């Protein structure tokens, strides 16, 4: 195993895991407030399509990125209206969002199929010597560099601020939060706006930074992987970093293994995140352990 191979795998994992991490962090915040969003895939798609479209139109990927984030937040607020205000079933509302995202993104992206953009510029890790392969492999766009710090920021928000404490209380027991004088609905709207913002960023990373194109359904189920990842990371933003690397690395690892001569089917590798998550859930169920926010989704996470 030479270093180039290892570095290659790590680099791919990091690239692939970045959008996964943003999506996971967003969903995590929403779930900490007690709302499951099965339509996360829809948000990602809208982010990807919007980001790409605006990048092409303005020629500036950063503006595209911001547009994607805003679009994601806006659409997630519609979802928030359904589940918080109208008290709709979260599962059904999530499906609604998923369908909506699938369709709207196709509509937005259609005129831009085949367009190519320069994408988010990549910058080498500061301080790295200008070693040919190294500099090329270890150059990332700004979203990658901000990914882990964002996870840290979310952690700090959740566990070191009053906002985060109240948010977590809402996700555990809205009645107690209300008794303590806070308004659960307001917190949930805020959480979902943030979640949508990050979902939009996650989607945009795929279209603007990774592939630099648009194709229908290009997020490929990442939204659902992110939902699984939230569980796997036990609703902890810092663990999500490791999880995103792990889950994002599955594909990267498989490619490298194939290049090294090992014949591992990509499909088996891609199954791993889901199987792992299922396993984790079974173990928790066995131990009667639930680290999920107690009021999460109500219909979603109880076994009663």
């Amino acid at each position: 195993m030479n270093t180039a191979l290892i570095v290659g795998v790590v680099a791919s994992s990091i690239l692939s895991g970045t959008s996964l991490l943003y999506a996971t962090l967003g969903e995590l915040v929403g779930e900490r407030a007690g709302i499951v969003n099965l339509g996360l895939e829809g948000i990602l798609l809208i982010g990807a399509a919007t980001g790409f479209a605006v990048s092409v139109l303005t020629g500036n990927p950063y503006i595209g990125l911001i547009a994607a984030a805003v679009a994601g937040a806006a659409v997630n607020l519609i979802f928030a209206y359904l589940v918080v205000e109208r008290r709709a079933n979260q599962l059904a509302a999530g499906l609604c969002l998923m369908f909506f995202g699938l369709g709207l993104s196709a509509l937005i992206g259609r005129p831009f199929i085949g367009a190519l953009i320069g994408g988010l510029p990549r910058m080498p890790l500061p301080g790295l010597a200008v070693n040919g392969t190294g500099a090329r492999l270890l150059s990332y766009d700004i979203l990658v560099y901000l990914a882990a710090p964002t996870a840290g920021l979310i952690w700090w928000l959740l566990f070191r601020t009053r906002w985060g404490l109240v948010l977590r209380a809402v996700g555990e027991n809205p009645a107690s939060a209300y008794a303590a004088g806070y308004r659960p609905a307001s917190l949930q709207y805020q959480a979902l706006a943030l979640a949508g913002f990050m979902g939009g960023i996650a989607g945009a990373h795929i279209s603007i930074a990774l592939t630099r194109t648009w194709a229908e359904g290009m997020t490929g189920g990442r939204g659902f992987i992110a939902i699984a990842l939230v569980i796997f990371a036990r609703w902890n933003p810092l663990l999500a970093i490791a999880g995103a690397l792990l889950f994002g690395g599955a594909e990267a690892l498989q490619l490298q293994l194939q290049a090294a001569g090992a014949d591992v089917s990509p499909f088996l590798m891609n199954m791993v995140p889901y199987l792992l998550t299922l396993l984790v859930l079974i173990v928790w169920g066995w131990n009667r352990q639930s680290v999920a926010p107690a009021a999460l989704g109500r219909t979603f996470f109880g076994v009663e």
Partner: protein
Amino acid sequence: MPASQSKGASPFGASMPHSGGPALLEAYGIVKRFGSLLANDIGFFDVRPGEVIALLGENGAGKSTLAKILYGYYAADAGEIRVQGARREISSPRDARALGIGMVFQNFTLIPALSVFENIALFQNDLPAVMRRGDLLDRIRAYSERFQIAADPWQPVRQLAVGEQQKVEILKQILAGARVLILDEPTKVLAPQECDGLFRTIAELRAEGFGIVLITHKLREVLDSADRVAVMRQGRIVDIVDRARVSQESLLELMFEGALTAPSRPAGVPVQHSGADALTLAGVSTVAGAGEVALRDLSINIRPGEVVGIAGVSGNGQRELGELILGLRQPRTGTKRLWGEDASRWSTATVRERGVAAIPDDPLALACVPALTVRENLALGTGRRYRAGFAVDWNRLDGDMARSFARLGFPRPGFETRAATLSGGNLQRVVLARELALNPKLIVALYPTRGLDARSTMTVRALLAGARNDGAAVLLMSEDLDELFAISDRLLVLYRGTIAGEFGPADFHPEAVGPPMVGAGRKSDAA
């Protein structure tokens, strides 16, 4: 004869008189009605600084209602509340807390997944946007030491034992500014060894000048830790006395005297005992999950043609006992026999098939499916009887059930109506009709007349007695001593999951039966 407690001072703390000063809380002329029920009619009640005042009474005496009025959960129909001498309106718990009144319920409002610190912080009025440890943490640590809370402030509350959680709940109220602390039956959720910890905490608070209202029905607690005792009966405060001037006997007298008259048993009812016991429990113990009561070394036998009554304050194992008999709960040790056969492992369906019927206290939640029609509900739990291939033999069911309603003297409800639209009393009648339709040989009745009007109550009692006369065995669990005295052939007292007393008809008086229900020693039959 149990040694009566001397008028000694409380072992836990100052035998000094309460630190003087104006009352923290006073209530004048509080009246509260729920429909036609007069829940509270209080002339005067007060809480002074540095004291523990016990609110003592049986279930249904109105203790909780008064507390909830003081805490702003209910609005009194009449009366006035003064906090530190000034008249105040308390229209919600937040108002109460703002005025320095805190209440600890049996269901804590702690959030299990959050840490001790976070739970307390959440309740603070002036939490900064960026949380810093600082002052709050120091105060928590200081109190933790005094209350002997072993838990680290960063531990999630769910890892704490119930007794510790309760202390955290108390701490939460205090650090949010309470000066009056109302504790609603705090030992109900505690294991015996945790009670000491609670009372030490109470003593600490008392020494610091807090006013504690201890709601309880347990005499031991009152005698050990209260400074004054307010005895409630049927919504009224009968008396408020200093601890120094009471004894177990005098308190019992205040709690029970004259309120209940032992009704005469119906004369000339033959009690038949034929054949094997219907139900035999021998040394049965069960495992208790969270919020449940473990049965301990329980032995009961019921013969055909007798009514065995189980008296006890609810929450001492009645529900668990019913589930055990019905096969919903397995005995961990001991055996359960039905008509001589070892039924310890029988499924509920089998138990019912063999002739056991269940009459629960909450038919809507436990015996009916509200979304289904009355007819469909009548078909449930009837085993093989109405099977006709894949379908249900509706005609036969209709016939049998109609006969059952007629025999019981109940008006027949529309069978097509959804069960959800029926009133509580009508639902209970449907359940009774169904359960009694197939002439069960053992009837397990758990608070069967709870929530029913007087006429329905009489009907149910007559039914149970009638079933007994027809040779069925009946186990009747009730909180209503009148009811138990009226139809039981024998009476057992259930306390903390075990039998605390057994009485024959000659001893059917509240003075005899009451004490074991509240954990006090038995009065000798000879006295």
